[in-house]
């Protein structure tokens, strides 16, 4: 394709020009990546014994972060639905940014999985033809399939859209819309399959509940859009990027409903466990009350619930929803609440007590924190770079030579916004 090298050179130019704040941010992220690299080197040398995972808690911080980020990846694209239904003016921008966020979140997901593996260099064993994937029986093969399919789909969509726009050509609705529509069920399926990974294990009663997948989706609808709301405000300020207040408030309102659903499902789960009070109550008890002297997760459980409830109230009341300081506070609270709930709050109680009734009190080591900081560093760096290229294209300041910069250009064909 002609102009690719031009495009790449232009992209490098966009990424390497910025104000002091931008460079501070990039420097901060690079420092995080270095911390991650050093930590991972130590783990690679010693083995996973550098973490605090042991046989009794054999998945922990890495897999918790992975689970949370699958939710972020899924929900970012799900914003397309309200954008389409409510006919927000910059639907293309919402789609592109959601997809860029999904790409970054998926990058982090795959890195967390790689960090958790005993032999990441053997990953080809899960690939068809050269390996021997246990498909369709193993849920992890399904997860690898949907996550990678979702990643490729997002990349194709966003590259198509951006490259067309860059060259000043209208995009084809017949190509674009079906792909967007396909990305929605794929987004749902990534998070559902990830839930099934835990859900299908009869050995772990804490996960072996049908409510798990619906709760995953509900909480993802909270955490993904929270990032988008903050991002929209940042972009509005730094670029000539039009997004109406009403659209942001609408997202916040939808998040309030999602959080209500999430809290309701949590309540249903807690009622079932505590009222029937069978032997499986122990796992729930470990998270909310502790067992004996083992109370490591209890403060986090209540912190997470407080954050979620407070955010729910802030997003439900129209006045606090429409005031940006309280709206952003709500986003922060939701992010924190869901991060605990879908991370450590999901994984650790699944393993505690162990299948033989023993309690291993797990807390992440410095190496685990270091690797996680590094992965988030890579993810945000990927996102920053992608946004830095995409937004100038979208607002029309980065165009192929000779292409007409029209700002928000319109798709061809009838019925376009």
């Amino acid at each position, binding site marked *: 394709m002609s102009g690719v090298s031009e495009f790449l050179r232009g992209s490098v130019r966009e990424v390497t020009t910025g104000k002091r704040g931008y460079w501070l941010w990039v420097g901060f992220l690079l420092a995080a990546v270095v911390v991650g690299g050093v930590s991972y080197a130590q783990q690679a040398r*010693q*083995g*996973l*014994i550098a*973490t605090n*995972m*042991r*046989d*009794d808690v*054999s*998945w922990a911080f890495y897999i918790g972060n992975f689970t949370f980020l699958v939710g972020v990846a899924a929900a970012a694209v799900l914003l397309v639905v309200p954008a389409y239904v409510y006919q927000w003016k910059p639907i293309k921008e919402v789609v592109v940014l959601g997809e860029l966020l999904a790409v970054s979140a998926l990058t982090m997901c795959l890195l967390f*999985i790689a960090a*958790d*593996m*005993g*032999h*990441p*260099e*053997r*990953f080809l*064993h*899960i690939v068809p*033809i*050269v*390996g*021997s*994937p*246990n498909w369709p*029986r*193993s*849920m*992890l*093969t399904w997860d*690898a399939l949907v996550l990678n399919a979702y990643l490729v789909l997002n990349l194709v969509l966003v590259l198509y859209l951006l490259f067309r726009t860059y060259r000043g050509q209208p995009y084809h609705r017949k190509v674009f819309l079906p792909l967007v529509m396909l990305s929605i069920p794929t987004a749902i399926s990534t998070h559902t399959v990830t839930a099934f*990974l*835990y859900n*299908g*294990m*009869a*050995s*772990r009663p804490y996960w072996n509940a049908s409510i798990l997948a619906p709760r995953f989706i509900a909480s993802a609808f909270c955490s993904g859009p929270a990032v988008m709301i903050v991002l929209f405000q940042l972009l509005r300020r730094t670029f000539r990027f039009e997004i109406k207040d009403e659209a942001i408030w609408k997202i916040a309102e939808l998040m309030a409903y999602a959080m209500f659903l999430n809290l309701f499902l949590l309540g249903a789960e807690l009622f079932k466990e505590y009222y029937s009070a069978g*032997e499986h109550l*122990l796992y729930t008890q470990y998270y909310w009350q502790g067992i004996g002297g083992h109370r490591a997760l209890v403060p986090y459980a209540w912190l997470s619930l407080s954050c979620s409830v407070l955010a729910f109230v802030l997003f439900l009341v129209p006045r606090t929803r429409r005031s940006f300081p309280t709206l952003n506070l709500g986003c922060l609270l939701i992010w924190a609440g869901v991060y605990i709930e879908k991370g450590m709050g999901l994984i650790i109680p*699944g*393993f505690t*007590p*162990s*299948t*033989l*009734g*023993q309690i291993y009190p797990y807390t992440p080591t410095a190496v685990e924190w270091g690797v996680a900081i590094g992965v988030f560093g890579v993810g945000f760096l990927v996102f920053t770079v992608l946004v830095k290229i995409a937004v100038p294209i979208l607002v029309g300041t980065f165009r192929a030579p000779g292409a007409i910069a029209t700002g928000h250009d319109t798709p061809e064909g009838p019925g376009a916004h």
Partner: protein
Amino acid sequence: MSSRRWPAGEDGEGTPRPAGPVQVEELAAGRRSFLRTAAAGAAVAALSGCGDSLEDFFRRRFKELSPEEVARVLERVERRNKERFGKDTTVRADGARPGVEFGYGLDISRCVGCRRCVYACVKENNQSREHPQIHWIQVLEMEKDHGVDLAHADLYYEADAVPRPGKFYFPVQCQQCRNPPCVKTCPTQATWKEPDGIVVIDYDWCIGCRCCMSACPYGARHFNWAVPTLPPEELNPDQHYLGNRPRPKGVVEKCTFCIQRTRRGRYPACVEICPVGARKFGNLLDPESEIRKVMETKRVFIFKEDLATHPQFYYFYAT
């Protein structure tokens, strides 16, 4: 039982099949197999002389190897053992014998909780001694007034003398399920159930994702969180590829009913060491076997029967 050999009426070392994969899957000789062989061949040719690790990296799944390829793999394992421990070892890959399905019986009323089985197993099967300490057999101390109740089970009991008053002991190891959740969940088919019922792992195919550990309801699977610490003078040189050969770091391992022994007609180490005769082992398909006698004369039960894993490991109370 007068004979200490598990196949009743048989003596000597038995007649194991020659080394070779257990099931040669004819189907695998198709396109996939060809592509893999071609890729591996090209890569090995290009990089020949770069050592055993590359050849291991590009090889196919154990179950798809020809007998010649298996022999080469076993030689490589022996060479690696020599490099790592400075000792000569014999690594076999005895296949399952036709007409054999192993069964294990554990008499709860006899077990005194001495943990001799735990350490005999560690010695026989070359487990990591410390950092991490790996025990394939885990003995739970339970309270008599609670029965088999994991909420009142202590794995880490320290006693001056066993059995302690008011307590009984419940050893747990791989139950060799007929419906193994670990095999179902493994994304790479690195673990499978053999025709004689033993669930095995290929340590050279395992990617260390630990799905199987989450799926196992019996805590029977253990991970090499670091390079196993195994003093060369304690290495058991009599090894099976799918069993007690030394493991690398980052892979999962588990009880194999001492595959290196039982496929050659011997008892598992834990059965042999048990000072009170609480452990019974034999061929479920042989009506004269010890395990069949147990099942006919005692009332056996299985652990966590509600999960429908259908173990080949039975518990019973003889008295």
